[in-house]
C-alpha cells in the first residue's frame, strides 16, 4: 500500500483494520512489518512527517527542526535536561547514532527481581535480536575505522587501564561522515525508515504521516477507536481533519513520553502508574582541548565505549562513550559572554568529547523515580524529572571520569560542561569537587527515553503485562516501545526495543486471530 501525508488528507477518514499501530519507530515499525507480512491489514499513524533522505541537507538547524520532537527544543519542565527524541516516519531510528547493544542480562535480571517482570527473559529475546541484527547489518567497528575524536577516548581509556571496546553499529555502506544525528543522506543507516517501513508498506501496510493521535476510546475492556488529528506538512498546525481507526487490536508505540501522554489524554490510567518512572540516561561528559585538530564533527559519532563504571554498588552506574561535537549543540555549552565565549567556541576543531550515560532507575530503595509525565495545555506532555543525591553524585563522578579520559589521552586542558578548566588530575578533582551539579547547573542531554508504562505482572504497580505487552486494563491494547522498560536499560536502547517488538509481535498476532 502507501504512505500518505497530511497534505493528502482533505476530509475526515473512518478506517478499519486488523491492527492499528500508533508510532513508526523502533517498536511500531517492527510490529507493522511482522504483521503486514503475515497478511494482516495494518494501519500506522505517525505524528511526524515522511522525510525522504534526499531532502536531508545535514545542517543542524534544519534537520533538528524537521526530525526532532519540538524541533529539538523538548526539555524537562525545569529546563535542566534537553531531550533529543525523533519525530518522523521511522521515529528516533532516523536520527540516532546507530550504536547497538543488546539489553544486558544483568538488567533483565534486575527487572525480574525488583520489578515483577515475568514471562520475558534475556534468553527469550536472543533469537529475535539475532534476526534483527542480521537484517540491520549490525557489525562491530574495527579499530582502523575509528575517527580522531573517538580515538582520543580510546587512548585515554587505554592509558588509564580502564575497560574499553569497540561498538556495534547498524550501517551498510557507511561513508563515516558523522552526520547520523541529522538523518542519513545515503541510506547507510539501517533505520526503520529504509528497512522495516518499506517492507511493511510493500506487504500492504498503510502509513499515515502527520497524524497526531489525540486519544483512544474504549468500552469496558475493549479499545473501540483511535482518533488522530491531521497536521499540515509545514507549520505543524492541525488541518481540522481527523482520522478514526477501528481495529481488532491496537498497538501504542509512540515511545516513552508520548505513549504515556496518549494514555493520559485517553484517561486510561487505572493504577496511577502511567507516566511514572520515566528514565533518560542523563548524559554529561568531559571535553578536552588538544594541540592537533580533532574535528569532532568528522567520522561516525560513536565507535568506542567503556564498561568501567557499570557496577558502582549502591551508587549510580554509568557508561562512557565517545561522542561528537557540532556547532549548534555544543555552542550552547559555555556560559560566558562575548569575546570569551567566542574564544571557547573557537576551540571546537581541537576539541574531543567523552560522554557518560547515567543508569537511572536502578536504585532498589525506589528513590530514583526518574521523570513523571503529566499533561499541559493542548494535551502536550509535561516532563518533571526528580533529582536525587544519587543522580548528582553520578553526574559529578562521571564528569570526573570523562575529564580524566581526555587528560590521559593528552589534552592540553579539559573543561567540564559547567565551563570550568583543568590541566592536571589534581585540578580536575578540585574543580569537580567545587562545581555545582544540580538542576540547571550543568547542561544535560537526553537521547534515550525509556519507561512510563512499566511492564510487570501486578496491575497495581505496572501498566502493561510483561508476559505479552498487553495493557492491564484493555484486552486488545498493547504497548510496544521503550516505555515498557521498568528502568533505563543501561545501554543505547534501539536493539532492546527491536527485540522486544519482534517478540511481542507474536502476541499481537495471536490477539488478532
Amino acid at each position, binding site marked *: 500500500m502507501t504512505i*500518505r501525508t497530511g497534505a493528502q488528507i482533505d476530509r475526515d477518514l473512518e478506517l478499519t483494520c486488523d491492527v492499528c499501530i500508533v508510532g513508526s519507530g523502533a517498536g511500531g515499525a517492527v510490529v507493522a512489518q511482522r504483521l503486514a507480512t503475515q497478511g494482516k491489514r495494518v494501519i500506522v499513524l505517525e505524528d511526524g*512527517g515522511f522525510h525522504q533522505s534526499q531532502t536531508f541537507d545535514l545542517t543542524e538547524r534544519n534537520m533538528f*527542526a524537521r526530525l526532532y520532537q519540538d524541533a529539538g*527544543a523538548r526539555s524537562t519542565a525545569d529546563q535542566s535536561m534537553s531531550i533529543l527524541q525523533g519525530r518522523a516516519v521511522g521515529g528516533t531510528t532516523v536520527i540516532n547514532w546507530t550504536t547497538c547493544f543488546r539489553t544486558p542480562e544483568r538488567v533483565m535480571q534486575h527487572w525480574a527481581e525488583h520489578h515483577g517482570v515475568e514471562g520475558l527473559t534475556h534468553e527469550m529475546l536472543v533469537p529475535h535480536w539475532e534476526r534483527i541484527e542480521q537484517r540491520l547489518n549490525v557489525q562491530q567497528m574495527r579499530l582502523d575505522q575509528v575517527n580522531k575524536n573517538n580515538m582520543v577516548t580510546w587512548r585515554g581509556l587505554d592509558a588509564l587501564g580502564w575497560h574499553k571496546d569497540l561498538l556495534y553499529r547498524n550501517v551498510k555502506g557507511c561513508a563515516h561522515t558523522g552526520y547520523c544525528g*541529522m538523518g542519513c543522506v545515503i541510506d547507510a543507516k539501517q533505520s526503520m525508515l529504509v528497512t522495516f517501513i518499506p517492507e511493511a508498506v510493500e506487504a500492504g501496510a498503510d502509513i499515515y504521516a502527520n497524524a497526531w493521535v489525540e486519544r483512544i476510546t474504549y468500552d469496558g475492556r475493549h479499545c473501540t477507536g483511535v482518533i488522530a488529528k491531521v497536521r499540515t506538512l509545514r507549520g505543524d498546525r492541525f488541518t481540522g481533519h481527523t482520522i478514526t481507526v477501528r481495529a481488532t487490536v491496537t498497538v501504542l508505540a509512540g515511545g516513552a513520553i508520548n505513549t504515556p501522554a496518549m494514555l493520559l489524554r485517553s484517561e486510561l490510567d487505572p493504577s496511577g502508574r502511567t507516566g511514572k518512572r520515566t528514565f533518560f540516561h542523563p548524559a554529561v561528559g568531559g571535553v578536552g582541548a588538544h594541540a592537533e585538530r580533532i574535528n569532532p564533527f568528522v567520522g561516525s559519532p560513536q565507535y568506542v565505549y567503556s564498561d568501567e563504571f557499570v557496577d558502582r554498588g549502591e551508587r549510580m552506574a554509568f557508561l562512557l562513550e565517545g561522542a561528537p561535537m557540532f556547532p549548534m549543540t555544543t555552542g550552547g555549552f*559555555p556560559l560566558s559572554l562575548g569575546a570569551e*565565549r567566542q574564544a571557547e*567556541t573557537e576551540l571546537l576543531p581541537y576539541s574531543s568529547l567523552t560522554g557518560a550515560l547515567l543508569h537511572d532507575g536502578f536504585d532498589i530503595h525506589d528513590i530514583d523515580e526518574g521523570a513523571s509525565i503529566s499533561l499541559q495545555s493542548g494535551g502536550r506532555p509535561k516532563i518533571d524529572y526528580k533529582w536525587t543525591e544519587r543522580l548528582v553524585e553520578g553526574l559529578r563522578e562521571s564528569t570526573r571520569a570523562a575529564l580524566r579520559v581526555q587528560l590521559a589521552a593528552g589534552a592540553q586542558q579539559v573543561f567540564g560542561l559547567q565551563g570550568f578548566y583543568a590541566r592536571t588530575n589534581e585540578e580536575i578533582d578540585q574543580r569537580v569537587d567545587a562545581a555545582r551539579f544540580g538542576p*540547571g547547573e550543568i547542561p544535560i542531554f537526553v537521547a534515550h527515553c525509556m519507561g512510563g508504562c512499566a511492564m510487570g505482572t501486578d496491575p497495581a504497580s505496572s501498566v502493561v503485562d510483561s508476559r505479552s505487552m498487553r495493557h492491564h486494563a484493555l484486552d486488545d491494547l498493547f504497548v510496544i516501545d521503550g516505555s515498557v522498560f521498568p528502568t533505563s536499560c543501561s545501554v543505547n536502547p534501539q536493539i532492546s526495543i527491536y527485540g522486544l517488538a519482534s517478540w511481542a509481535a507474536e502476541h499481537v498476532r495471536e490477539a488478532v486471530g
Partner: protein
Amino acid sequence: MLTRDEYAIVQSVASRICPQPAPDVPGADGVDVGVQVDRLLEYVGPEGSADVKTVLALFESGLVGALFFERVKPFTQLDPESQDRVLLAWRDSSIALRRTVYRALSSLTASTYYADPRTWPGIGYPGPPNPTALREAYADQLVNLAALLEPGGEGEGA
C-alpha cells in the same frame, strides 16, 4: 511567533552573548538571531513557544530586576555594559531559577547563532559534506522512498 518586544529581548541578549567576532564574520545582529528563533518557534507551535515567552518576559522585567536591587529598567533599555552586568548576575546568582533562566537564554541564543553558516568561518567549522555529491557517490544503495508515497503525494522538505 515572537512579538516585536520579544524579538527585541532575544536580539539584545544575543548581541551581548555573541557579538561580532571578526570583521568578516557577523555577530548575532548580523545573522538576526531573533528571526532564527522565531522560525524555530514556528516548528514548535504556539503551545510549545509559551515557555520561551515566559522566560523572555521574566528576564526583561524591570520589576524582577528591582527585586534583586539590580535595575529598574527593562533589560532592553540598558546600555551594553549594564546588560553584561545583568546577564552575569543571573548566571552567577545564588537563586537556581535565575541561573536556569540564564542558561536557557544563553543556550537558545548561542545555539541559534552558531547554527548559522555565516558564523562557521569564525570557529573553524567547515560545514556538512555536500549531500548531493554524497548521494551520487552512493547511488547504488539508495532506497526509493518516493515510491512508497501515495501517487501525487508530497513528502516533507520535497
